[in-house]
């Protein structure tokens, strides 16, 4: 039977055919390409075509759809200027045993002297609750900083955990003496809080010039969350570029820049806001990373394929490029198992340097096709085109095409 299937597979596949890629909702492909006049030169790298395929366990559960990016937060961060220390540092606590981390911030290029670094003395902190009651001492503010000689962390940092007896609500933290002139960054970690903010996008990679959008939700909280105050901005990988975003309702949105240079690393959304949830004030900060893609290349819609004399499946992709560079085609091959269920059987990869638009052929050998155990139609899923020269994901197709 197996031999028959192999013969059938060999005979039924003809010399060459082509198929159109199937773009569906959620798939990503550039509508137009940037050209080499508008982008910096291509970095050096591997010039040869390199390919590698390997078999997959057909039981592997693979998420083919674009998942988007999401981040969870049970912390918030604020920066306090020295002059505002006199009125105290406002702390909103939504869970017991919150950890408060204070850090003296030196301006860029300046270092903190030893005296300044020791300007925050934990035993001089006083916490005032909303009823004007004072709390101080190690029993309520448990220091998380050991003796300096233990080299726990740098001197300009202090941290303490609030006693569970303090409960939740609004507090003010007072430092009765602060000899430094630098601002203090205050971070509050609320590991035990039931209020976990999720910031999520539907995409992992945005194209330059597109609209960025992210949703704010509190996990497991069905009641309407009211945004008191919020600010959000995008930060470039090198930190030099900041773009203000709008926060409307529970959504962050704004326009992404059109880039002429591409920095290694990721862009980030920085969000800081306060919410009212079931009558309780909750503060949260969040950082979310995403890729910003300059469209340097894309697939041509038609793919050629054939089975060669050696029984290999040859897939031939047209690659249209706007900028020379090294481009990679990567995807998953699915086939039908004995129960006629489509299962993943292989990963295929091939990359080559393109000076101009052209084609990339990759071969999947008989061993990887596992003809004895699986049969067509073969489906190509999770197909991506990447620009390796600039570390960009250019296209993603969930269910790209079938080879019959």
């Amino acid at each position: 039977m197996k031999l028959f299937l192999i013969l059938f597979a060999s005979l039924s596949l003809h010399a060459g055919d082509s198929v159109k890629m199937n773009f569906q909702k959620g798939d990503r492909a550039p509508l137009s390409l940037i050209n080499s006049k508008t982008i910096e030169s291509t970095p050096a790298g591997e010039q040869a075509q390199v390919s590698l395929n390997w078999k997959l366990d057909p039981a592997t559960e693979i998420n083919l759809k674009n998942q988007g990016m999401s981040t969870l937060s049970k912390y918030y961060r604020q920066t306090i200027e020295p002059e505002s220390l006199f009125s105290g540092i406002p702390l909103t606590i939504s869970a017991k045993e919150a950890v408060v981390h204070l850090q003296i911030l030196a301006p860029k290029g300046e270092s903190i002297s030893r005296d300044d670094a020791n300007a925050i003395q934990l035993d001089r902190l006083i916490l005032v609750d909303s009823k004007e009651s004072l709390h101080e001492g190690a029993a309520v503010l448990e220091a998380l900083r050991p003796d300096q000689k233990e080299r726990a962390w740098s001197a300009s940092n202090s941290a303490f955990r609030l006693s569970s007896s303090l409960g939740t609500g609004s507090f003010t933290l007072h430092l009765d003496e602060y000899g430094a002139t630098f601002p203090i960054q205050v971070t509050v970690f609320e590991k035990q809080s039931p209020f976990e903010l999720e910031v999520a996008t539907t995409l992992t990679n945005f194209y330059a010039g597109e609209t960025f959008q992210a949703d704010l939700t509190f996990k497991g909280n069905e009641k309407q969350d009211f945004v008191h105050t919020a600010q959000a901005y995008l930060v470039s990988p090198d930190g030099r570029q900041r773009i203000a975003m709008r926060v409307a309702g529970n959504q962050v949105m704004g326009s992404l820049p059109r880039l002429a240079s591409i920095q290694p690393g990721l862009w980030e959304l920085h969000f800081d806001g306060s919410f009212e949830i079931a009558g309780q004030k909750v503060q949260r900060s969040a950082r979310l990373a995403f890729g910003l893609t300059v469209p340097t290349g894309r697939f041509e819609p038609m793919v050629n394929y054939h089975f060669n004399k050696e029984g290999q499946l040859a897939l031939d992709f047209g690659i249209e490029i706007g900028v020379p560079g090294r481009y990679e085609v990567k995807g998953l091959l699915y086939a039908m198992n004995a129960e006629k269920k489509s299962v993943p059987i292989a990963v295929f990869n091939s990359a080559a340097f393109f000076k101009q638009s052209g084609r990339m052929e990759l071969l999947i050998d008989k061993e990887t096709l596992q003809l004895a155990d699986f049969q067509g139609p073969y489906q190509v899923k999770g197909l991506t085109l990447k620009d390796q020269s600039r570390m960009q994901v250019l296209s993603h197709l969930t269910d790209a095409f079938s080879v019959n």
Partner: protein
Amino acid sequence: MRMCLFALLVIGSVSVMAQTGVAFVHGTGHQTDAYNDYWKPEFVQTVIQGLPNTSNYTVINCDFEQYMWTSDAAGCLADSLYQFITSKNINDLVVITHSNGGNVMRWILSNPTWDSRYPVIIDKIRWVNALAPSSLGTPLANAVTEGTVFEQSLGWLLGYGNDAVKMQQTHWMSYYNQNWLLGTSGRPSTPKGFWSIVGTDVETSIFDPDSYCGGYTLNLGLEITQAWLDNCSDGFLDCSSQAGAGSVWYYDHQFTDGDEPLSHNQSRRKCFGLAELLRDDL
């Protein structure tokens, strides 16, 4: 499971004499003498006793303060592994990584078309033993990126404000795992096995001699960092991050002497039977 896989590999290559080698891949940092500084001789010398030829080992020295894909990081690692494989005719390579070294190795496994040496290296690898890999990043990298906190306690792990720290932020690793790295949940597997050892706790009692294995002050720093981490962590990484890619080989207490946990510092040291476990795996 691992032994079954290895048995299959051996049976499949009976006609070829296995020339087994082992490579030690350090974590974040720019190493120039990782043998003495990062791993320590007693650890390496114990592990290589499992080799038929104890000279078939290499200790990698690269700049893992860079992004994993750069020529100073993955490029340097590929250079070193390729030279080791070709000069010693290694055809059965076990790679032992620690911390961020697992990410750099997983970069090579996940992106074999990046460099023509990558497929050659992958072909020779039996599997990767990833000691406490930072596969899903760490909240401490998030904290470090926005300030100087932990600069002394974690300087030996992270360096200061470098790209590798940025990359190991949890939200950055989430992106790279979805787009550029294989082996995490919902993603295709790597072409060769990626087996992690997970450290679950840090013990730093001044009265407990076990706290001194690997260095007391380093372990103490790690206990403090646990305030930022899950209940299950090795002081630098949540267990979920260490177990986030490939397959878990062991949680520390499943194999260590006295069921001791391995802190992030101890998972690269000759502590509680770790080196012997790796030796016997060869």
